[in-house]
């Protein structure tokens, strides 16, 4: 145990202490000096190192917001699953950015790359699901004659996929149309999309030529190009079922589409404009009965691209910001109260050693909180519980040492020898018991659901630092303080008798 008392170790502890003080304190000093909010992420706030900022990351149960676990289904055949999952995450990211959420967390999960977890602060569940699950794959169809069709935008005609979809669009913007009365979405096709679109419009015009404004015969259904959202071949196969067609052909319903199950039929119809002339150059406009909001939603949806898979929400959690703030307050109060009780108890029961252990405990708390900021560990209620529990573990290591210290003193050792023997003999128990806790943490961290993972992470960090705090800090403080003779009185040490040196 001489190594523990050596100067390199002491300097290392001192370095940790200074670093913790800096991490814990510097931000608050700056914030107070500049009248900034005391908690949360303030853009560009020091201490920040190349965009890496130090502050407590609050989990959704403390900050308020929505957590959703999605399952990915209908993977496209022949593509690597991890890649599809990454692409889906990228699309969700783009869509979520449109919501203006600070630090959205979108992570892949699942042993088979079939899960995505989304954490959005300050967004309610309905809004989040609408944005993420928004179906926005544009599908262009042309009309083919089918006498059995009695319903839909063009009775007597059935839509056919043209191969032109939202994937052929490079950008979309919502604007007000030149007349200034309604909202439209302007789209620009990619070069291959432009070629396809050019071909389609040329075919349309060729189907019944003439000037659509003057000639009645020129306005045949084949000259229309319908635009749908997420229309599938399965929908087209059911086109002769008139009630089905009536539902699909109703204006697109984003809420219905976001929440659809295999059995629901949602409206997917956007518009069915006539082609006045061949359109080359890859520019087009979608008009319909848009509001500013719905035009913007559509443009955002098109821009973010389409999801390569279907998303099914497995669980959804929404916590209001007020409940989160209340939880922060309560757990803070509980934590401080707990710490105060422990410190009081240690000092009353163990006197000077107890006081030193309390100092070590404060070092421990400061260091752990600094680590939470630096890593960063997202703090949740379960995480805070893990931290408070690790305080218990830290106290235990001290209690083990002090009880042993009392025994060694009773056995007639000198104070200095007793401290050394106490630490040395308590060490195997401290080592083995904390190892078992760490093993439990690792198992939880790997196979637990996210709430339990947070708990495991904070507990594990806590256990590691509790070892440093008890074995190194308490031991050093004891050695330094007890080296001077003035504290070697039994009432101060909480022991039965003290052998003269």
């Amino acid at each position: 145990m001489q190594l523990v008392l050596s100067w390199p170790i002491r300097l290392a502890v001192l370095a940790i202490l200074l670093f913790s003080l800096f991490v814990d304190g510097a931000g608050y000093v700056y914030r107070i000096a500049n009248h900034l909010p005391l908690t949360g992420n303030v853009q560009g706030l020091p201490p920040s190192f190349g965009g890496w900022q130090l502050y407590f990351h609050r989990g959704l149960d403390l900050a308020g917001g929505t957590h959703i676990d999605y399952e990915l289904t209908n993977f496209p055949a022949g593509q690597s699953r991890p890649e599809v999952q990454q692409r889906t995450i990228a699309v969700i990211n783009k869509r979520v950015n449109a919501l203006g959420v600070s630090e959205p967390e979108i992570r892949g999960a699942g042993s088979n790359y079939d899960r995505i977890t989304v954490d959005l602060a300050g967004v309610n569940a309905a809004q989040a699901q609408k944005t993420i699950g928004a179906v926005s794959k544009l599908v262009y169809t042309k009309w083919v004659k089918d006498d059995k069709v009695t319903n839909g935008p063009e009775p007597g005609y059935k839509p056919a996929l043209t191969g032109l979809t939202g994937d052929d669009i490079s950008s979309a913007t919502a604007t007000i149309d030149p007349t200034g009365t309604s909202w439209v979405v302007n789209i620009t096709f990619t070069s291959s999309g432009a070629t396809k679109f050019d071909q389609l419009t040329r075919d349309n015009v060729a189907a019944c030529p003439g000037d659509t404004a003057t000639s009645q015969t020129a306005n045949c259904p084949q000259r229309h190009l319908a635009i749908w959202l997420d229309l599938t071949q399965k929908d087209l196969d059911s086109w002769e079922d008139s009630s089905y067609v009536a539902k699909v052909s109703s204006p697109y319903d984003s809420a219905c589409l976001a929440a659809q199950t295999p059995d629901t039929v949602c409206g997917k119809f956007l518009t069915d404009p006539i082609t006045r002339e061949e359109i080359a150059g890859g520019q087009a406009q979608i008009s319909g009965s848009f509001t500013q909001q719905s035009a913007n939603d559509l443009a955002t949806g098109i821009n973010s691209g389409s999801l390569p898979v279907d998303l099914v929400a497995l669980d959804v959690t929404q916590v209001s910001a007020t409940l989160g703030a209340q939880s922060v307050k309560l757990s803070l109060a509980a934590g401080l109260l707990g710490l105060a009780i422990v410190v009081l108890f240690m000092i009353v029961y163990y006197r000077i050693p107890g006081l030193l252990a309390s100092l070590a405990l404060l070092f421990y708390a400061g260091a752990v909180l600094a680590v939470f900021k630096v890593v960063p560990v997202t703090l949740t209620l379960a995480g805070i519980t893990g931290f408070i529990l690790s305080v218990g573990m830290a106290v235990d290591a001290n209690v083990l040492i002090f009880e042993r210290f009392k025994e060694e003193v009773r056995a007639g050792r000198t104070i200095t020898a007793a401290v050394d023997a106490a630490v040395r003999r308590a060490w195997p128990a401290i080592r083995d018991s904390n190892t078992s806790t760490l093993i439990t943490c690792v198992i939880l961290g790997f196979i637990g659901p996210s709430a339990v993972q947070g708990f495991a992470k904070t507990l594990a960090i806590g256990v590691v630092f509790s070892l440093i705090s008890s074995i190194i800090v308490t031991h050093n403080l004891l050695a330094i303080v007890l080296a001077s003779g003035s504290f070697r009185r039994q009432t101060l040490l909480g022991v039965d008798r003290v052998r003269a040196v």
Partner: protein
Amino acid sequence: MSELSDVEAEEQGADVASADGKAKAEAVAEPEPTAVREPRVRKLNVVGRRNLFFALSLLIIIPGIFSMWRNGFLLGIDFAGGTEFTVSFANHPTTAQIQGAVDGQNLNGSVIETSGGGYIIRYPPLNAASQTSVENDLQNRLGPMNVQQILEVGGTIAGETIEFSLLAVGLASAAILALLAIRFRNVPGGWRAGFQFGGSALLALLHDVFVLAGIFSILGKVFDLRIGEIDAFFVTAVLTVVGFSVHDTIVVFDRIRENLRVSQRLSFEQVVNLSIMQTAARSIITSFTVVLVLGAIFIAGGETLRGLSLALLIGIVSGTYSSIFNAAPLLVVWRRLQPLR
């Protein structure tokens, strides 16, 4: 403590009695060991009275197991699946009015009153669209409503949570057994002794898990209390108790390991009892501080943490009891059934 001053004590701390007040009150003077030079130890004969302590444990465990077998558990939403709204109403309707409104929706909803004047309304799983419409419908029926939390858990996740919990407890137990076997293989008896130590710790651990689960089953199903509901937090608590229980047991076993080395003249039972007495003060003090902290969370930590802190309180009290009165005595029983030297 003056009678301790005549104790021969040099290199080992193996010869000092517990100074703890509680233990002293119940302390029974052990007949002097036959060997003249053996230290005199004041102690409670835990090992000798082990059947009494085993019986005390069974007194709690058996009703618990019976309740788990007959009634199962009151399942929280994490396990049962469904959609749960935590709300409060501006117009303060009565519970009966809310129950009436929820019944009127014909969605199999149920209403639970929380302590803060709020309500938890539970439905079978609802999708996003119907979530919004249910919310609007409630507002229509009961007036302005403040939604604090919405939880929705589908059947897949609920099943996975159960699977994960069993897996985690199983894995953690196996890992702990292995760790103890490795750590204690160098006591006399080698690997077999290591497994005796590991196995006894494991039994003590299962004792705590059964005490905790049994009490929660009784609280939830017999007394119909919502605090007895089991959810992901409960799983966290069980796993923490697993860690803590082993932690406590290891401290006792570590002392046995040390005393086996230094007190060759004592019988195995005497060594075990001595070690229990030497570590009892530490076990009780540590648990006492943890109980104080958990008590603070239980009282001041708010509704969300109440179930968790109660589970931890029960588990830690049980863990301390089992590490003192069950784990080491079990080791003695095991040693008798399977002697090593």
